[in-house]
């Protein structure tokens, strides 16, 4: 035990470890907030789809030799998120199919572009780290950490401000629209927040594992709690806890960060499921 503590104290002295922990906490907090809404709207896979769009956008940015690809990636991802969520229930192509189309399409086009135009010798390595986020969280710069912190604060503040509206729009969009709630505006805001979170989260777990950060906390919390507020709070705590645990284990055991976090999520999901089944649900 002391050995582990010593090792952790040693690592704590390195800035990149502190950065990784800070960014990990912020991103897992943000991504858990809208998880409940996304799962219930049948958009569980939007994280996957949008992160592939972000991957495609990154490929375009690198082909065009942009030094800073963040603005372009953010813009394209936000546009896709708005297009996806706007279609809603009356669309000709339903939510899951639309997400699948965009997801696979953007991934293929992104890989194609990188393959055709990038002179880099280590293409599969680049693609792999973009998809699985294997190392990027450990190579964060101070500017990236600051940007992430600012965006996280905005996301959390926006969520608190729009909390009741998110509830109203998710629970019953027809009722909300009929009684004068500007559902289109709020759906747009939700889409923008989701896009920002996904672009942020790509740094942490890579695009393939973002869905895990969105759905595991929400589904686990829904096993145990029965009101929107308690589920939201619980999924935020769950998400932050699992990410911290995952990052610490990956540092100690030398495992890939993203997959270790998801593994922690999976284990905790089963713990919550068992607890939920045992309690028959807590009435809070």
């Amino acid at each position, binding site marked *: 035990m002391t050995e582990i503590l010593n090792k952790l104290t040693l690592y704590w002295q390195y800035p990149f470890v502190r950065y990784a922990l800070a960014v990990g906490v912020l991103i897992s907090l943000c991504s858990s907030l809208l998880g409940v809404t996304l799962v219930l709207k049948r958009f569980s896979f939007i994280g996957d789809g949008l992160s592939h769009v972000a991957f495609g956008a990154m490929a375009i940015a690198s082909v065009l030799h942009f030094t800073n690809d963040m603005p372009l990636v953010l813009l394209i991802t936000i546009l896709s998120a708005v297009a996806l969520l706007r279609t809603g229930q009356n669309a000709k192509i339903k939510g899951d199919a639309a997400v699948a189309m965009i997801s696979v399409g953007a991934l293929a086009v992104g890989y194609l572009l990188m393959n055709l135009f990038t002179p880099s010798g280590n293409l599969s390595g680049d693609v792999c780290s973009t998809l699985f986020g294997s190392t990027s969280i450990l190579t964060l710069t101070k500017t990236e950490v600051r940007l992430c912190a600012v965006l996280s604060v905005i996301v959390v503040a926006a969520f608190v401000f729009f909390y009741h509206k998110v*509830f109203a729009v998710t629970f019953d969009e027809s009722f909300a629209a009929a009684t004068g*709630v500007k559902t289109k505006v709020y759906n747009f805001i939700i889409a923008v927040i989701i896009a920002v979170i996904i672009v942020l989260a790509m740094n942490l777990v890579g695009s393939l594992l973002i869905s895990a950060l969105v759905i595991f906390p929400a589904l686990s919390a829904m096993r145990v709690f029965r009101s*929107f507020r308690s589920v939201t709070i619980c999924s935020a705590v769950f998400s932050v806890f699992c990410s911290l645990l995952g990052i610490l284990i990956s540092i100690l055991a030398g495992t890939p960060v993203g997959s270790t976090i998801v593994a922690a999520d999976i284990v905790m999901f089963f713990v919550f499921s068992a607890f939920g089944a045992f309690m028959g649900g807590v009435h809070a």
Partner: protein
Amino acid sequence: MALITCQNLCLGYDGREILHDLSFEVNSGDYLCIVGENGSGKSTLMRTILGLQRPLAGQILTGDGLRVSEIGYLPQQTPVQKDFPASVREVVLSGFEGKCGWRPFYTKAEKQQAEENIRAMGIEALSRRCYRELSGGQQQRVLLARALCATSKLLFLDEPVSGLDPRVTAEMYELIEKLNKEQSITIIMISHDIAAALRYASHILHIGDRVFFGTNAAYQESGIGTVFMKGGDVL
């Protein structure tokens, strides 16, 4: 002036017309039942009046200073709600959202009003329970309490008793009648239940191949309903 006036409405979707040249008006205090076969456009009509979709032609006028944020609505349940984690209190309070505008939180007065509406619907014992774990009748009462947070004037109900057993159905009708009589809330209700429509409504709008709008008594005299009543779609 009438609360709602519909003039020469043509309704439909994807360019296909299902209702042609419909005109009627609803006055304050009315209890209007909209009846008709499946697919005749009852829900489309209600969604159009509520502004959820556009009419193909014609117009809908509101009078008596009625604003959108003063309309209550009891929609049919959506699949999302079947596994939504929400307490009864949270659902009822969300009825005030239309009045909030950009204000992020509910006021004290709104919270008190929500409690009162919960009490009026006789579900105060359930207010901390989870919405999805309630029975069908209890869920309808919760949604009715939410609709009352949104309105004290005009209530739209889309088949409020579908899927309920006879005893709960009767209780639901009594609650709605009480709102109409005691709080003078105008009721516009879609119903499959023609017997109940004839018993409670002051006015009937029958849509389908033949269209009728008028008072309940005139409808019974017209004989349009009798064909419909014997048509087997009585439940």
